[in-house]
Structures are given as C-alpha cells and as structure tokens.
C-alpha cells in the first residue's frame, strides 16, 4: 500500500497539482462547505459555546501541565480494572509492542477502528510486514485502504473522493479483500454504505483481535472513550477477545466530569451533530461483556518534544475534531495529501513539524501553508491559536536557515535597514515612482506574483512627498524622528 508520506515534496509543489485538479477541487469544495454551514448551526444552538470552549482549553492546559501525574493515575486505574499498560517512546516501539501482542494471540488478522495514532505510526504496514492483515472498518478508511490511497482528512479520510469514484473502488477492489461488492452497485451513499456493511460483517463476526485508538482517557477512573458513527467502533471494541488501544499521551483528561465538556463540543465541531450516533466508554475489562484481554499502549512519538515548546505545546490540546480543516481556505484548495502527513490542514501544519521536527522539506514548508486568515482559531473548540503557532514555527524554520531562508533573511535584514531610515525609504520610493514607466510588466524574480496577477501601477509620488508638498509647510508640525508632537 502506498500509505506512506516519506519523501513528500514541499507543500507548495504538492499543492500545485491539487489546485489544478478540477474533480478534487469540486469534491473538497462541496464537502467542506456542506459541513461548514452545518457546524455553524450546531454550535449556535448552545448559548454557552464560548464558555465550553474556554473550559475545554483549561482542562487540556491543566492536564498538560501535570501530565506525569495524570498518566500515572491512569496507568494505575487501568491496571486495577484488569488492563495492561505499555509505554512506547516512538512509532517503532509502539509497532513492536502491538505486533508482539497480536502474535501472542496466534491470530493473523485484526479489525481496526479508525485511529489517528495508529495511522501516525504506520501500524498497518508494520503488521503487514509480520504477516498480520489489518482491516480498516471505518467507511472512509475502508475506501482509502481498498483504493491503495492515503488519508486526506482527519474525520473523513476519503473526503477527496466523490460517490462515483467510491463506487468504482468498491466494484473493483472489494473482492480482493473479502466479500465482493453487490452486482450493479449504484453510487448512492445509502447503497455504498450497505455494500460496506455486507463486506465488513463477516470480518467483524470472526474477529479475535480489535485495535483502536481513543478520543479521551479518564485518569481518575481509567476509562477510555471512543466517539464514532457507524457502529464499526462498537464491533471492534466489543466482539473480539483481545482489544489493543494505541493512544497518544496527551489524550488523558483528569476527571469523569471533564467529559461533559467534550461530549458537547466534539460532536458539534466534528460531524456537526448534537451527538454522534455512538460513543463507547470502557474501563479495563468487564466480566462476560466484551474483550477478556485489554492492552493500552501509551504513545509519545514526539509529543514530549512538543510539550517542551512553550508556544507550540497548545497543539497538544487538539481533540481531532477537524473543524479547522473544514473552514480552511488553503485546505479546501490544496487538499489533504499536500500536507504530507496523516494530520492535514491547519492543525497538521502545526502538529506535523512539531511531532516530526522541521528537518525535512515538507515539514519545513508546512508552517508557511497558511495565509494566517484565522478562520481555524475561530472554530477550534479548544482555542488553539493556530496562526500564533504557525508564526512561531516560521521563526524556527527561518533560524534553521537552509533552502531559500538564507537569502530571505538577508533580504529581510536589508529591508529592515531601509525601513529604519525613512530618508532612504523615501528616496527609494521616489526612484520607483520616477522610473515607473520603465518597469517591465513582469519584473524578473517576481514570477511567483506575476504568473497569475498583475503588479500594481506605481504612483507618481509616494504619500510622504504629497504630504510634504500639501501639508508639511502648513499648520501641523511633522514629528520627523519620533519627537513628541
């Protein structure tokens, strides 16, 4: 499967292709605009949205500040409830732990609930390498898996596909993985959902091992929580004998009561519903109900590095609702694949470079994949100031230097010097104005601008000259070098 992001080109190059793909642009536009309006309505139903948002932010900040304490409490409660807790410093270690656990069961296939953490660590590929087949059971994940594709959205990984494309994937690929698509399958969403139901049912019914992530983990009770819609989550969480949950360490919240905030903000931000169809909570194992064996793998994989950054750590508040993707004008046009990570969109642009570091070309380009319009911050249910973190990460990229940034820094320094000398600035402006007739319509080096846009016409004189001539001599005293008026 091509579900890897290694060696991705930088964002602008990857986005260029997407921007010119008419089908993709249409699919993304339709989907994001649909959900945008619905979310706004769902949020408007709650008069105390601002307070819920603030409480969500504070719960997460408080947890992160005392993360060691809450992780230990969680570990203790999960163990007391019959679960086993594992700690994984990175993707390799997490994959090794899970692979060993599956192998110990003697099984060669597992069913999976959609989980960002397992995508982040490339668990399916790691299992495959060990001869274990991992079946994705979320409808969109199934579409991605059957289509040998990559996810392009946090909530709806197949958002880049329209119904016709999905029907074609089901028709040609389902048979390779199990029960084939029904004959004469139409492209109505209801028929496509029915095809997925039939295809996956046999897998659910025989599954012995389930793998999940979790949206939240409650420290005081050891409870894990999974929000979902289709019932595939319930199937994976309750039918197998063994359940393995891989969860990022930042997913812990202190108290059971804290869920009252996120049970209100997550569904409305995510699927724009008052409540998603199914939410499952479980604490260790339960007698005679559900898996007899439960393993929790706590994943770091760059999270502690992110936590150490005083501006960037707020990204760890993220509850993966994807509201920021749905309102982002850049995401809408570039699509999810351009972000070169399982975390696309605005949150991906601040999360990936922090989890993975800024050394690669794609990660160094992600902080610039935004016009800083602020729509993401506005809708974030835990108030992550994404533009603030983007600018902060740009500083880190610029400091690192490297391709393009050394020249840029020199230019910034030169411009800074001119801008610190108003006399020189005025002279420069005058030269630009005087020579305006001579400017070629396409300035060399300005290609990135002029390929698609005209340059403005230079005025006859800068404002400061007009001022000198028309107002400078009269009543007011120009405050030339910052003296008090």
């Amino acid at each position, binding site marked *: 499967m091509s579900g890897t992001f290694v060696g991705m080109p930088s964002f602008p190059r990857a986005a260029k292709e997407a921007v010119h793909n008419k089908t993709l642009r249409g699919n993304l536009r339709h989907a994001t605009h649909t959900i945008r309006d619905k979310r706004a309505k769902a949020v408007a139903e709650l008069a105390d949205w601002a307070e819920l948002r603030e409480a969500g932010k504070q719960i997460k900040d408080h947890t992160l*500040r005392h993360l060691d304490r*809450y992780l230990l409490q969680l570990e203790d409660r999960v163990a007391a409830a019959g679960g086993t807790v594992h700690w994984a*410093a990175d993707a390799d270690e997490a994959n090794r732990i899970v692979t060993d656990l599956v192998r110990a069961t003697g099984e060669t296939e597992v069913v999976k609930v959609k989980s960002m953490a397992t995508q982040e660590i490339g668990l399916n590929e790691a299992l495959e390498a060990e001869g274990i087949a991992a079946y994705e059971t979320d409808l969109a994940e199934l579409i991605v898996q059957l289509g040998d594709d990559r996810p392009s959205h946090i909530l709806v990984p197949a958002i880049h596909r329209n119904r016709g494309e999905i029907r074609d994937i089901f028709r040609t690929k389902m048979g390779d993985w199990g029960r084939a698509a029904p004959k004469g399958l139409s492209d109505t969403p209801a028929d496509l959902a029915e095809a997925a139901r039939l295809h996956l049912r046999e897998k659910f019914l025989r599954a012995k091992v389930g793998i999940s992530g979790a949206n939240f983990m409650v420290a005081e009770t050891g409870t894990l929580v999974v929000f979902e819609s289709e019932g595939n989550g319930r199937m994976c969480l309750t039918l197998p004998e063994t359940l393995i949950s891989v969860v990022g360490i930042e997913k812990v919240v202190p108290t059971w009561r804290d869920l*009252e905030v996120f049970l209100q903000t997550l569904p409305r931000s995510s699927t724009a519903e008052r409540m998603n169809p199914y939410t499952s909570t479980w604490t260790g194992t339960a007698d005679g109900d559900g898996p007899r064996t439960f393993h929790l793998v706590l994943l770091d994989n760059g999270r502690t590095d992110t936590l150490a950054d005083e501006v960037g750590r707020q990204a760890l508040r993220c509850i993966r609702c994807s509201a920021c993707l749905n309102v982002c004008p850049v995401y809408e046009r570039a699509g999810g694949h351009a972000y070169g990570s399982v975390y696309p969109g605005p949150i991906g642009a601040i999360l990936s470079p922090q989890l993975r570091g800024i050394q690669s070309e794609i990660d160094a380009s992600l902080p610039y994949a935004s016009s800083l319009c602020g729509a993401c911050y506005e809708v974030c249910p835990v108030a992550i100031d994404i533009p603030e973190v983007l600018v902060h990460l740009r500083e880190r990229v610029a400091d690192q230097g490297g391709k393009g940034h050394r020249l840029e820094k020199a230019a910034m320094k030169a411009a800074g010097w001119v801008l610190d000398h108003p006399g020189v600035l005025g002279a420069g402006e005058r030269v630009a104005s005087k020579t305006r007739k001579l400017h070629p319509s396409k300035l060399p080096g300005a290609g990135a601008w002029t390929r698609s846009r005209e340059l403005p016409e230079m005025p006859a004189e800068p404002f400061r000259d007009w001022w000198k001539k028309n107002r400078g001599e009269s009543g007011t005293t120009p405050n030339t070098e910052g003296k008090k008026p």
Partner: protein
Amino acid sequence: MSTSPAAGPGPGPDSASGAAPGSASGSGSGSRERILAKVRAAVADAPDAPEVTRGYLDTHTPDAGMVDLLAENLADYRAVVHRTDSAGLTELLMRLLAEHGSRTVLVPPGLPPSWLAAADPTRIHDREASTAAELDEVDSVVTGCAVAIAETGTIVLDGSPDQGRRRISLIPDHHICVVRAPEQVVASVPRALPRLDPTRPLTWISGPSATSDIELDRVEGVHGPRTLEVVLVED
C-alpha cells in the same frame, strides 16, 4: 515495558515518585521512565495551569419541556419514537415486533417479563456462550436504558440486567429501547454523567448508526442497528 494488572496499587495522583506500580514486569525498555522524565522536564518552567473554571451551563433546557425535547431530538436523528404508558407497553412492543416481521428477539436477563408478555417472536436469551454469528441471525432486541439525554437525543446503556451485554444491542438490525419518563430522562450531558457509573461499559446511542463519510452527507444505517425505536413510557 508493561505493567501487569496483577501489580499492586500504584502511586496515586499526587505521587511524585513515578515508580512503576508494584515495579511490574520491569524488563521493559525503560520507555516509561524516559517518557515521564521528558514530560517533567518539558513543563518544569511552564506557568501554572489552575483548576478549570466551569462557566458553562449545567443545562440549556427547562425540566418541563425535557421529555418532549428528547422525543424531538431522537426523531431528528431518525430514531422512531413512540409514547405510551405502562399499561400500553406490552401491546405496543408486541405490535412493533410484529410490524418489523421479527421471528426472534434477544432478551436481556433482567428485562421485566411483562414487557414481552404478548410478543410473538421466539425469545433468545443473552448468554456469554453465544457466538457473534448466532446473534447475527436474531431479528430484534428489546432493552431498557440507564439514562436518556433530552438535549442531544441520546440513550445510554450501562449493561444493567434490563440491558444486557453490549453486543446484543449492536448485532441485531432492529433495536427497541424502553425509556421510563421522566425518571430516566435528564436535560443535558452535564446532568447525565453523575448518574452513570464509569466502571461499567457504557454505550451512548443517538439515533441509528450513520455515516457522513461520502461527501459529508449523512446516511443512516451502517453497521449498528439500522432501525432504532425508542419507547417513552410516561405514567
């Protein structure tokens, strides 16, 4: 590394030690200690993050309109809502099962026997030994619930004797859930949590299973029961 469930009680929330609970397996990679050490170093100089200010509302709904709102919100997400009283419940359940054409119905161990006294389908009991494939042959399931939430149109099952194991309300394609109103109904999510026991496995259900995975259009009916009927019993 792993900490086994057999290990003794570990440090509580206020422990600063970070020693493995009961020094469990101990043969691990040391990642646990490394991660905890990195966490502590990362936030050592961070500003204090005080306890949470809960400025949000406890409810958005007056108690008087609660049951009507529950019915409205359940229906909005395509659950079929019926309202009756205790006297009418037995007959209503008989009728709903007959209308669905059910020949078999799953019955949790503690379901009040009177509920299905008039129903025709063969009762299948909720047993640990049943296989998922066997349950897949059953047409319907009837359960009670732990609590219902008006503002979100949600019913919550907690595995009590009148609800049974989680899988019985999942595998059959038709789920009838009986809610005693207003006793089991709360207005809001903040009012539901204190009534639920987190040590029990909980299933929060808001309408039949659905997906928005195709063009972000909502379609009802995927893996969970495609028909959810909720009976509000008011006396």
